[in-house]
């Protein structure tokens, strides 16, 4: 039996058990669509679980659906990045751990629209879930990015004007459909700043200037919260390279605060916590 089928059999078995023994009301997972694409699905009963599947086409981060069912007892399947998203949501008080039953499994990485391994997965360090209630044994694939092909390193070595040129070119593509925001489990504000028009915070015109403000603001709101799952990047219909900026931002957070989002329950997000030895240089050390 090939490994993916084996994994799916185990997933279904554990999901059935969760319905029977753990009293979950619904299960968040994936199923195959009519056209053979793996899509997110909600399973409400033991019988429906036969359709549950996971494969490398499953590009959607299931954690972005959790908040809408948070009053119910939810079961869900989760690999590394999805469980890290859940940890961030738990740490931010958005969901209740007691209402959550997590079936963890090792991840092989997911593919993008061109069936290539997605850029979020090429340097994935956490293929195994960080929290779970039951776990499917196995080794996920942790990867190191190839420094020769790493766009973050490449951009780092470029001049400011070259970086700006790349950024402008990416921002011109955006059509402001806000799929990135909606696909992101961390973008859960009830009212997003772009959805306020009394007064108008940001013009809706999808030009480079407004698009830059939108994307930069979203990314900054994710500083210290982004788990680099890549859901926004895969959701973008225009192929805007969001991943390279989010990865860079995560590196900066790691350098400054020694913090990676979603690894430990009960932790305060980097930008929500104060420590006397705060490395931020404008806080009275080098800057003053």
């Amino acid at each position, binding site marked *: 039996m090939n490994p993916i089928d084996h994994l799916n059999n185990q997933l279904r078995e554990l999901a059935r058990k969760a319905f029977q023994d753990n009293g979950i009301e619904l299960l968040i997972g994936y199923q195959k*669509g*009519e*056209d*053979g*694409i*793996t*899509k*997110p*699905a*909600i399973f409400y009963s033991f019988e429906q679980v036969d359709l549950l599947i996971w494969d490398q086409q499953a*590009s*959607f981060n299931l954690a*972005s*659906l959790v908040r809408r069912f948070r009053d119910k007892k939810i079961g869900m399947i989760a690999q590394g990045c999805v469980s890290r998203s859940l940890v961030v949501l738990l740490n931010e008080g958005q969901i209740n751990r007691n209402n959550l039953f997590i079936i963890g499994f090792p991840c092989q990485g997911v593919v993008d629209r061109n069936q290539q391994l997605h850029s979020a997965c090429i340097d994935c360090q956490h293929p195994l879930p960080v929290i779970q209630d039951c776990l499917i044994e196995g080794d996920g694939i942790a990867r190191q990015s190839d420094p020769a092909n790493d766009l973050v390193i490449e951009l780092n070595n470029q001049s400011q004007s070259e970086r700006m040129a790349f950024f402008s070119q990416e921002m011109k593509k955006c*059509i*402001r*459909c*806000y*799929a990135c*925001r*909606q*696909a992101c489990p961390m973008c859960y504000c009830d*009212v997003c700043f772009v*959805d*306020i*028009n*009394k007064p*108008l915070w940001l*013009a*809706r*015109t*999808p*030009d480079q200037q407004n698009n830059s403000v939108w994307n930069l603001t979203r990314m900054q709101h994710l500083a210290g919260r982004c788990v680099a799952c890549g*859901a926004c990047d*895969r*959701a973008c*219909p225009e192929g805007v390279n969001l991943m390279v900026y989010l990865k860079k931002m995560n590196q900066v957070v790691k350098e400054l605060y020694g913090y990676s989002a979603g690894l430990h329950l009960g932790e305060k997000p980097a930008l929500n916590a104060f420590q006397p030895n705060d490395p931020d240089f404008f806080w009275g050390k080098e800057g003053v």
Partner: protein
Amino acid sequence: MMRFFKLTQQDWEKFLQHQSTQIAVVSMEKSKHPFKHILFPPHETLFYFRKDTHKELSEIKENKVLYYGLPPCDAKTIQLLGLNLLADPADPYFQTIRDNTVIISKACDHFEPNCFCDQIGGSPGALNGASAILYTVEDGFHLLVNHDWLSEQLVQMNFIPSEVENEKADFSKGSVPVREIKPLPIDHLREKGLSTISKTALWEKVSATCLACGICTFLCPACYCFDIQDISFGRVGKRERTYDSCLFSIYTTEASGHNPRPTIKERWRQRLLHKFTYYPMQYGEIGCTGCGRCISECPSHIDIREVIRDAEQYCE
């Protein structure tokens, strides 16, 4: 008046070359971006203004452009958008672009995985709203023209037209693909769609995994909702029109802050019923071309064909 031309490969190239000396000629093919983005751009500046004089500074100008090669489902945009935007009072910005646009569509030679025009009563070889449609047949091209200016241009180049007697005649000479597939039950929604409004179970099921982003509406050839915003810089400013989407929460948020469509299920209901119930009620046509972009590009891979079949069971 419809006319029919038989062209060889050289004739066709000669025609395009001749046209390109007079007007802009643009080659197109089916892409992720619908032809709507040209007819009804994602953002346009309607006019510029000054605060002191209230004078509009711009006028609408547009040059004639010939687009060729786009699929029939994209050509249908011109019909569907026109039903709404040209209804009295006509939208002058759309009308100007439309009147200066000549479309020669090209019949499709295959179905892509998410194509379903033939399941909603269309055809990959239909003229739809195009000025003309090109069929690739064995010995060259067959061109069916429904545009006086275009006919004249062809006649001036000494191509000989045949008058079209029977619109049903097969000009494609069998070059258009046909497949055995069950049509979608759109008639149920057309006639009894209103009865599904109160069926919460249906809309909860449909919207369970919808993220409420705007991809499907932004890329839909038939969606025309827009927002207008004044953007001022001190004493001068401009009025901009951009796309809006019924899936956004702000779309229906009222000045008081109340939102009559508070959750995704109400917004999904609006999207589906507008296309398949309200559109036919108002204009007699469904607001869908069957291009499949909303299926291919949806981050949750929600399939509108499955939704239509689900909705059928709730029609009373």
